């Protein structure tokens, strides 16, 4: 009975939410290049894993594309100079998350041509898988879908496992963001090339590109660019947040559930973001490093005629971007990433990093999409969060526990670890309870306690 139900539901995941998407402002605008800022702030840790080690000194001249910090082991990626200039400082600089992080500050030469000098072209088809993985690491590629997990690590299938399917995540389910959409429309060849490389590296038999059905034009563009011998299919999925979360996407496309605490590779699947693979398709043959990415720059309730998708050098401070957009310095909220999961900034001197997909400027009473106030009420047990949580958790119960600091219980009894902080629960909560924030706190505390116990 239940199994039958599950079958019927294939092609979609249950729960989730339908926020206002607000993509109109930027989805029709072609990707443009943003000017180089006078100063770049390049953190050595823009990915998950071990920080890269700086290999330049203060006062040293660096050329665009040159490695300025090298990978520290396998679970790490190098950092390349996003522009030609001079290293002004290597020290603790502000980050989006708050703590000061080690960063390389580069004063950009105004007059420089900004040609990418480094890069040693190769024929990927001629390399072995191990060599390819090494080359991927050398590009400094880390997932552009948000988590910034080193791509070469993901593409290296552990010996005990085998990958049969590569899923390409073109959902872009976050409101406001359209960078992946534009990349699919404008660079289908790069993307398909990247998919082919990834198929080769992982040894998967086929690739499926999952795209939300509000981006049918992107799907059409990709289909048109397919070669007959490609083992690649393009499929439309329901437009619903968080369709782009890999677990949801796999459920929608393949009807499988990634087991609790597991990874897609446990099911023989590798998931990559379209932006990541488009970069891979370009960087792998040319041997260049990841020095810029496409970022959606837009806002709500602000006058921003230049809103659109821009190719932004890594390390560009947000302040510079806003100046370029002609936005006045005073505004209420600036968010890096999408509105559902992005971080609001305490300081505008925070740089764009490899994982940044958007810069959103919110003005006025923009916290809410509608008529609400921000006042927090006690949980009225409406169950909306339970009905919204795509992971089928019980956010209400966890919220009550968090209110009493019973973090341990949240983990042992209510699967706190399975929460991927999508924000659906907070989004629907009529009591405006900051559920996700509670869960982040709980996870952090539990992690610390475990570390201390270890």
């Amino acid at each position, binding site marked *: 009975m239940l199994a039958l139900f599950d079958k019927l539901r294939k092609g979609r995941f249950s729960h989730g939410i339908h926020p206002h998407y607000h993509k109109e402002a930027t989805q029709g605008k072609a990707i443009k290049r943003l000017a180089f800022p006078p100063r770049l702030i390049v953190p050595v840790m823009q990915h998950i894993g071990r920080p890269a080690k700086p290999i330049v000194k203060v006062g040293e001249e660096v050329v665009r594309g040159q490695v300025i910090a090298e990978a520290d082991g396998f679970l790490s990626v190098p950092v390349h100079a996003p522009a030609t200039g001079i290293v002004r400082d290597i020290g603790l600089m502000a980050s989006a998350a708050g703590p000061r992080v080690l960063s390389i500050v580069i004063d950009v030469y105004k007059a420089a041509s900004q040609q990418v000098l480094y890069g040693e072209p190769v024929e990927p088809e001629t390399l072995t898988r191990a060599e390819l993985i090494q080359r991927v690491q050398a590009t400094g590629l880390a997932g552009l879908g948000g988590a910034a997990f080193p791509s070469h690590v993901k593409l290296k299938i552990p010996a005990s496992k085998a990958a049969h399917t590569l899923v390409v995540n073109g959902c872009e389910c976050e409101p406001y963001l359209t960078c992946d959409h534009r990349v699919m429309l404008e660079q289908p060849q790069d993307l398909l090339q990247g998919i082919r490389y990834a198929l080769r590296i992982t040894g998967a038999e086929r690739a499926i590109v999952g795209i939300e059905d509000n981006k049918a034009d992107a799907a059409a563009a990709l289909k048109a660019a397919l070669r007959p011998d490609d083992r690649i299919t393009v499929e439309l999925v329901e437009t619903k947040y968080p369709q782009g979360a890999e677990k949801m996407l796999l459920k929608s496309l393949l009807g499988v559930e990634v087991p609790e605490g597991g990874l897609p590779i446990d099911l023989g699947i590798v998931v990559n973001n379209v932006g990541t693979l488009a970069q891979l398709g370009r960087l792998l043959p040319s041997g260049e490093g990841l020095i810029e990415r496409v970022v959606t720059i837009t806002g709500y309730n602000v006058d921003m005629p230049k809103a659109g998708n821009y190719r932004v050098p890594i390390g560009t401070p947000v302040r510079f971007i806003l100046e370029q957009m002609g936005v006045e310095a005073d505004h209420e909220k600036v968010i890096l990433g999408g*509105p559902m999961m992005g971080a609001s900034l305490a300081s505008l001197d925070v740089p764009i990093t490899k994982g940044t997909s958007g810069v959103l400027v919110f003005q006025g009473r923009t916290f809410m999409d509608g008529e*609400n106030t921000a006042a927090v*009420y*006690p*949980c009225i*047990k409406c*169950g909306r969060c339970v009905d919204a949580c*795509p992971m089928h958790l019980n956010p209400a119960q966890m919220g009550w526990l968090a209110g009493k600091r019973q973090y341990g219980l949240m983990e042992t009894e209510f699967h706190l670890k399975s929460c991927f902080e999508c924000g659906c629960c907070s989004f629907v909560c009529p009591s405006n309870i900051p559920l*996700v924030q509670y869960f982040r706190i709980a996870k952090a505390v539990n992690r610390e306690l475990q570390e201390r116990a270890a």
Partner: protein
Amino acid sequence: MANKHVVLHTAPHVKKPQDVPTIMRNVVYALLPIVAYAVYQFGISVLALVIVTTLACLGTERFFGWMGGKPNSLGDWSSTITGMLLALTLPPGFPLWMGALAGIAGIAIGKAVFGGIGFNVFNPALVGRAFVQAAFPVAITTWTPAFFSGRFTEFVPSTLTLPFLIPPETAEWVKQVAVDGFTGATPLALHKFQHVATSPLDLFSGAVAGSAGETSAILILLCGLYLIARNMMNWKIPAWIFIGVVVTSGVLHLINPAKCADPLFMLFSGGLMLGAMFMASDMVGSPLTPRGVMIYGLLIGGLTVVIRVYGSLSEGIMYAILLGNAATPLIDAFTQPRLFGALPRKKSA
């Protein structure tokens, strides 16, 4: 001052446009037609009753808020709902002082002691009613006729009873004003104690004895549908209750038609419609998950019929809902959602 500064806030930065006061305010809107119809039916006595219970609820809420040093919580409208619903569950000629006491008891022991909105485990309006039902069993089973002629100018004699005193006998007065055939018993009591059936038409139009707000099932249904349409109420709760009632009474009716009325009568008589639509559906006292809601609804529906058929009382919805509220934490504990990608349970819960 122009010193605007960056505001930090945790994700998500957008929200669904429905917060607690909005929902509650809409429930008030949904209740207004029912109140209006009750006033049309029973006259100014009911109007006075609604006002008194609502004021009592609001006053008690504010008093306890003040005692606990909490900010004013009247703006969330929830106490207004409590007051209105409470009045709708009381007999039209219920003495005002008893109504006030019900409001005070409902908010005080039903809500304030638990910490106010959201923390109450029982439905405050029903706590108030259960309290006065146990305190004044005679007054709460004294019904007055609907549509009596002087209803817009004249109070039911018992309405204006002085505080703490026994309400006057209304039997004589009822004889004077009643359209003939009024027996002073609700359709359920008639069926149970006298084995007299009431015509469905009367049930729909509300020309029967009963609580102020329970008599027109259709209107209640429509007002509930408004909330459902606006996604402010969980439609599954009334639905499961109706299913529970129909199934239980259907089975019992087939076994012994003399003892248990037919499902249709069960569904449209008494306070079931009001209770299922507006009181059982109060999310604070109902389970979180769809499976929990199913159990809760079936439990309430089933209990209502069982109490109506086998108990000493003719109506069981109020107690059924209170028992459902009481069982909610247990139901919740046993109907946790199944985790996405859950591994088969190794250890037992």
